[in-house]
């Protein structure tokens, strides 16, 4: 049990995918202008990430490994991720058109979100078992969502603030991201 807690803490804080491993920066900068959009993106990513890490684990262990097709794992993972994302997109479009609107172009972009493929590959690299993979994917997603929400909250405020002209917009956002990253470095050694 402690293993799982450690995996969670490590993926959420210590090895945060966005701020420490610098994966998934595209939606991090793109969808963090509004808090609700960021939260929606985080939740969609959470769903996709958890499901795809489980899927890719199953795919690898029960299909690729027995047939010694490990070298095809990247293609296989992308295939499964794309399917999951496509499915999620349709489901969200039906169930919550508003969220679908908010996520917009970024939802299909989860397919190419390197964090998703990263989690799948890291799962294999670190020899995780089924439940560990699930936790690893879930933890990474929670970390992603948390950072998205934090960053969006800051950005909303910064947009209204007295930012010097040359720094308005993307520059101050990048500086903020850098500072947040520095802050997350402080979690190193926690686990």
């Amino acid at each position, binding site marked *: 049990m402690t293993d799982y807690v450690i995996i969670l803490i490590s993926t959420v804080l210590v090895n945060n995918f966005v701020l420490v491993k610098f994966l998934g920066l595209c939606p991090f900068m793109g969808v963090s202008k509004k808090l609700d959009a960021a939260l929606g993106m985080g939740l969609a990513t959470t769903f996709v990430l958890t499901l795809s890490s489980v899927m890719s684990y199953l795919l690898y262990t029960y299909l*690729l490994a027995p047939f010694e097709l490990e070298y095809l794992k990247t293609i296989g993972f992308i295939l499964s991720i*794309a399917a999951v994302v496509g499915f999620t997109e*349709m489901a969200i479009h*039906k169930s919550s*058109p508003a969220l679908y*609107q908010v996520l917009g172009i970024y939802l299909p972009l989860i397919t190419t979100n390197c964090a998703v493929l990263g989690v799948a590959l890291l799962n294999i690299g670190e020899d995780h078992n089924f439940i560990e993979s699930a936790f690893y994917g879930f933890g990474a997603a929670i970390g992603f969502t948390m950072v998205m929400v934090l960053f969006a909250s800051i950005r909303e405020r910064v947009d209204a603030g007295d930012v*010097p002209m040359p720094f308005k917009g993307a520059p101050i956002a990048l500086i903020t991201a850098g500072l947040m990253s520095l802050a997350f470095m402080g979690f190193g050694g926690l686990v």
Partner: protein
Amino acid sequence: MSMFAGILIFLGLALAFGLLLGYAAVRFRIEGNPLAEIIDKKLPQTQCGQCGYPGCKPYAEALAKGEAEVNLCIPGGEPTMIEIAEILQVEPKPMQAEATEPKPKMLAVIDEDICIGCVLCIKACPVDAIIGTTKMMHTVIEKECTGCELCVPVCPVDCIDMVMEKPNLKNWKWPEPKAAAERTE
């Protein structure tokens, strides 16, 4: 041997995922076009037709289908264009130079001395805000006029003018204070 196994496995996977997505496409089919509704809500509903569509709703539908440019709504001006662009996730396009600012609300006023009672403006009004009948003087219901200017060109005797709403105690707004120490240096 392993090459064939690979091909087979991936064929199978692709088939399985394809079936899954195919099922999802049927299961989660969307009726109608919620996008058009959302855009329609953002449009100013003057029904002026300046976008080239017969009303706000048709324009919204065309936008939702991706058949229309986002910068056609003149009364809405730039803010509306940006809102539409955000909804559709497309690049905002600059408005024509004259229409960057949303127009202040204007009202049509019929000069009743000149009106000949031709009913042409009544037919043109998209919100039925003009009353009158053949050979009778017409007048505009101020409350309902959207300021679309559609009645101006059709008037054969040029008796319709667009006037600005006068400021009064009811529509007066506290002015916004000058931004406190806007730091630009």
